[in-house]
């Protein structure tokens, strides 16, 4: 199939950036979206142009490194799909496709489609962990975890930290990401001692990083490749209220 892509080109953070149009001819419907960009890049290199920079690594939908706005939608048109798992068969011959980086003030553009998501790591640093010293843990069976709790914790823990939620949110809020981590750890008995401080500290860090506030728009969960539900934000808000009361 033949398509046209209009890609955001920005050589570095200080560059203003612009959309540039490229023709991609004879691409296989079996190619992934990133493979389509690979094919285009090979051509750009041989033509003496600068290839398009984009982030990716596992190409299996699990590392969370890839991500771009495709026709205005984070990770593109397919539900619950990362960009690397989106295939060209979902597009039509002759389509014109817009490709842009995540847009959020807390995720500055590095180059073309690559953004800096370091703010996510700093939110985790503020409290997204269990303080468990290495080497001396009690036997794993010492603390049974009811299966429904373990399953729910697992669901929340599947967040891959891709940042699509932030990119899709009109406020640029990272609430879904933070809520997922708070739920994961808060649903487990091991996570209880730090439950209050965790939620307060992580929310504080989130504000400091320049993420917007959550106004329950729900755009985040629509694009989330891992289907992290909006209900977790409600859970986070409850945890936060309880923690603040105790202060």
């Amino acid at each position, binding site marked *: 199939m033949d398509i046209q892509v209009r890609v955001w080109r920005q050589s570095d953070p200080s560059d203003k950036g612009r959309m540039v149009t490229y023709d991609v001819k004879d691409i296989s419907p079996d190619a992934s979206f990133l493979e389509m960009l690979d094919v285009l890049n090979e051509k750009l290199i041989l033509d003496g142009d600068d290839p398009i920079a984009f982030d990716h690594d596992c190409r299996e939908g699990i590392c969370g490194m890839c991500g771009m706005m495709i026709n205005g939608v984070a990770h593109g048109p397919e539900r619950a799909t990362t960009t690397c798992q989106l295939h060209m068969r979902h597009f039509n011959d002759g389509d014109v496709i817009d490709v842009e980086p995540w847009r959020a003030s807390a995720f500055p553009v590095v180059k073309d489609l690559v953004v800096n998501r370091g703010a996510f790591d700093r939110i985790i*640093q503020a409290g997204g962990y269990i303080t468990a010293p290495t080497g001396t843990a009690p036997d794993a069976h010492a603390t049974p975890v009811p299966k429904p709790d373990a399953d729910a914790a697992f669901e929340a823990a599947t967040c891959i930290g891709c940042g699509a939620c932030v990119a899709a949110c009109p406020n640029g809020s990272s609430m879904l990401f933070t809520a997922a981590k708070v739920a994961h750890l808060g649903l487990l008995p091991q996570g209880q001692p730090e439950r209050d401080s965790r939620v307060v500290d992580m929310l504080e860090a989130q504000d400091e990083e320049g993420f917007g506030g959550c106004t329950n728009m729900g755009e985040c969960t629509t694009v989330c490749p891992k289907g992290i539900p909006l209900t977790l934000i409600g859970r986070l808000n409850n945890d936060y209220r309880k923690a603040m009361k105790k202060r």
Partner: protein
Amino acid sequence: MTESFWKDGDPIADTAAPDGPIETRWDRRKFSAKLVNPANRRKLSVIVVGTGLAGGSAAATLAEAGYKVRSYCYQDSPRRAHSIAAQGGINAAKNYRNDGDSIHRLFYDTVKGGDFRARESNVYRLAQVSVNIIDQCVAQGVPFAREYGGLLDNRSFGGTQVSRTFYARGQTGQQLLLGAYQAMERQIGLGNIEMFARHEMLELVIVDGKARGIVVRDMVTGEITTDLADAVVLASGGYGNVFFLSTNAKGCNVTASWRAHRKGALFANPCYTQIHPTCIPESGSHQSKLTLMSESLRNDGRVWVPKRREDCGKPAGDIAEGDRDYYLERIYPSFGNLVPRDIASRAAKNVCDEGRGVGPGGLGVYLDFADAISRLGRDAVEAKYGNLFEMYQRITGEDPYEVPMRIYPAVHYTMGGLWVDYDLQSTIPGLFVVGEANFSDHGANRLGASALMQGLADGYFVLPHTLANYLASGPYEKISPDHEEVVAARTQVEERIQKLLSINGDRTVDSFHRELGHIMWEYCGMERTEEGLTKAIGLIRGLREEFWTRVKVPGTGEQLNQNLEKAGRVADFLELGELMCIDALHRAESAGGHFRAESQTPDGEALRHDDEFSYVAAWEYGETPTLHKEKLDFEYVHPSTRSYK
């Protein structure tokens, strides 16, 4: 004539390993290791390259102990290391099932599974600490699968007869890595780890014979800097991407290990590659990597190809039952579809070589769930494998509930790596190597769910003791960034980058990588011959020469330049590929992931030669590589023939 590809060197030995009863070796080693007073620890610094399960767990543990740690990874966050992609699970000898498992049995299975090409001492220790790994991860909040009673669930995996695999749905690696990553982030928050994401190590710094630092490139600004410390830990993962197509993440590379190898670290068993039988086949020339389908599918799926070549082009449904060849069930009646990875992979290759493969290019076999669906019902199959079926459908556009899946073997893991002793120290003092980057615990073949176990064992439980022993003699003399060795290492990196950028030829980096991958897969893949390997060495040398005259790397070094990153990695793969072929050539036996066609039984099974090849092949870098042999002794598990008929 093949002799001229390498020179024989002196034998080597693992002098750090204690002898005596195997059950107490690790305890005795720990007791004899020197300790560092807590107050002195903050004066000691360690560089850890890599943030996967091995590097992440090592950095977190060392930082918590009080050492100053500086950590590096090439991704934008330590959480994205390739370990995140591991699906199936992690082994541990917990015997929670009361099915006869024990440390000794895990030890036994691993030595046997590795085709008697691993060290007994190391494997025993691995089995011993496996028990603590699960405790550690649970304490961190890793949401392993649970049973209704709230206790941990297990499954059997990868050809073992006991249920010792702990798992978190099909995303075990992700959950384990998040545990290590969170422990790391906590230490970063406390100021004990300084993290450098999007930084690539491009050279090792050796001063007075000791590893003292690394040269790194900031991948965003292009700045080249040197970082100096008391010790360096490499946790940079495996080199399966030398084949271009593999199940590894795109960025996986050998650069950190190879740079250390060129500076004197021995590289062991490079030819041992694990090929996984159940991957989604290549769909066309755009293919950039391959995707693994969990091995658990073989519990219910039946593998077949048409009996007749003429039928291969027909839709599967049009091929009558009597015209299908369920070849694994036919050749291996007692294990059937559940034979180990190396056997299943080679059998698939053989039927495709006979011209009976299905799908594009005839490189595929069917993995058919029709029987399972009619026996268990679609819902039951969906409950068990639904997410895998969905993944398959997403990638291929075919519905595996309606038509059989197509699978083909793909490169998955590399058992070779930098040589380390029992302390995980390489042949360069102060350079420690953990996880997939070292060669140590799996021998010629890795059993499923054992790589995650090894990575975490090394990082959480082994290295912190053995590295401390080394650091106890520190802090080592302070080195100035102007020291001639440091400047020389930095200059090497700068010149190499300039060279890559200046060639400005007419071929892309990827085109070289693909071509190298074809050579490796064809001649150093599932089956190797003396003739093929000799040919491959010539082809690789030619390709390497062409690379250095015709490669085109656009852009500059002072910016984010993904092609420059790739070019450096491919340049190293072009050297490693040759060593892999030489290693495969010299090992005139079949063992695990290394099948030499000249060494097989009359019915086509792998034939080991214990009398000649019971050793680790450790290579020293040079114009002509030098082979040092480390003899392997088996006191506890006696070499026997693996048979699955």
